[in-house]
């Protein structure tokens, strides 16, 4: 284990906090990522429809397999195109 000395004013926690949740979804683009779990596509497709009905932009993505992390180009594409991501993590 390496111990480093904090170079900062120590006003923030050492553990990186999660990004704050957006207060509103208006004007944002939501990515929906199907990780290729069984029937996840059905659930996510319906979820996408419900979100789109509220006038919010939706983009759909899919991982080739749930057994591996998403390929780098897909991760970069998602990061570049949307503000937040919803994914289904189980069957």
């Amino acid at each position, binding site marked *: *284990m*390496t*111990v*480093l*000395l*904090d*170079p*900062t*004013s*120590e*006003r923030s926690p*050492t553990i*990186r906090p999660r990004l704050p949740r957006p207060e509103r979804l208006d004007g944002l683009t939501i990515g929906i990522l199907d990780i290729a779990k069984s029937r996840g596509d059905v659930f996510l497709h319906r979820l996408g429809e419900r979100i789109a009905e509220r006038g919010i932009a939706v983009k759909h993505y899919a991982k080739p397999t749930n057994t591996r992390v998403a390929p780098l180009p897909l991760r970069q594409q998602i990061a570049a195109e949307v503000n937040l991501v919803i994914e289904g993590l189980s069957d």
Partner: protein
Amino acid sequence: MAAGQFILAQRLTWRMAVADDLPQNGLVAVVKRDCPTCVLAAPVLGDLARNVGLTVYTQDDPSFPETVPGRIDDTGLDVSHRLKIEIVPTLIRFAAGREVARTYGWDRGEWQRLTGIAEFGRDLPDARPGCGARNVEPGVIERLKIRFNETGLSSRRIEIGEDEDEQEAMFARGWSDGLPLVPPTEERVLRMLDGTARDPQEVVGQVPPALAAATVEKIAINAVMAGCKPEYLPVVLAAVEAVLEESFAMHGVLATTMFVGPVVIVNGPVRRGIGMNAKGNALGQSNRANAAIGRALQLVIRNIGEGRPQEVDRATLGNPGKLTYCFAEDEEGSSWEPLSVERGLKPGQSAVTVFAGYGLQGIVDQKSRDPESLAKSFAGSLKALSNVKHAPSCDALLVVCPEHHRTFKNAGWSKARLYEELYRLCEIPGGELVAGARGIAEGGPQSLDGKIVNKFRPGGLMIVRAGGDAGMFSGIIAGWSAGGPRGSLPVTKEVRN
């Protein structure tokens, strides 16, 4: 028990155990095999162990000295550290648990006095100097201080997991300017602090925008990350002190949408002492000292002051010098007084001057052979800063290359003379500056028409000499449009050890 408490408890237990190991009364010697004087004294150590009792601690080879069967392995150096051994062999007498006498190296008279025995070591020379002890070797002393909780460092410790990449961990915490950092371990920070005699907890100033306290220790941590050597630290400290002077207006320099950041110019003997570059590529990728000192200053602002781009730092474009912008003046061979002397320090004093500036505008003049022509060349380029329609405009730092300086030197022009000529040559008819004049909407009010306006406020120009010996290429580092008393003034600080 939290991990930190456990480590502390372990250290305290360790310390007590070490203290308990030492004899209450009698003689103690600390030696190492890799010391010819210890090897020389080994027979005497054996005699003392047999005849009067001697506890021998060995620093490197537990089988040494063979003459003392009960020698104690101190390859962990705990006892040596607790006894503050600096030279081996060291011979110490204890009485009632307290040290009452100590000698080091081999000196028959001293050893006889300390042991109270009149006759030994007849076959040996009268005296031999000892060798440096292992526990004070660089790299070792720091580890021992950490193990015994003696660092005096007060910054929060951040544990990086074994499987975690240190660089990525630092990037993720936002500590980096975009380039890799040297991980600020306790050992490295301790070694960095060796570069100054100042108390690690001394507060150098409050760093904007957070107005958080910059202690010497916090600055040292950032200097480590920037790649500094310990001997650079006094220059970094002086630069931090300088930008935190109220007149420099560091908050404004940071928060402005304009391009500027602190430019650091170093004068005096420290330049050569730490190997700064004032010659070819002085403003370029240059060398470690130039790059690391300027970077350390920026990391202090980023990490202690929380001055980060797209947060309080609102620069529209910024400039590459906001990674690092630091160089030394080429004083050797100059006929002009150094910038620091011009600004009130004594010749021979090391100093930094900070200037809120950006970028570099080259002045290419390969034909002027007299100072009048060259000064006009300089002035023409200076008048274009910020916008040809702006005056008074920003301050400026003129970096005169050696070949251009030679022209002034040969003609007997002092720096004061060049200032005088440049201010005169930078006077502009106000009509040229009016908004819309010359087909450019930018510009000043109609009231300028008919007046003469100087491009620079009085004192708004600074001149230094730097650069490679070949090339008639000087440069201008433009300042902030809010230069001067209403914004940022250059600040000069002595470099103190």
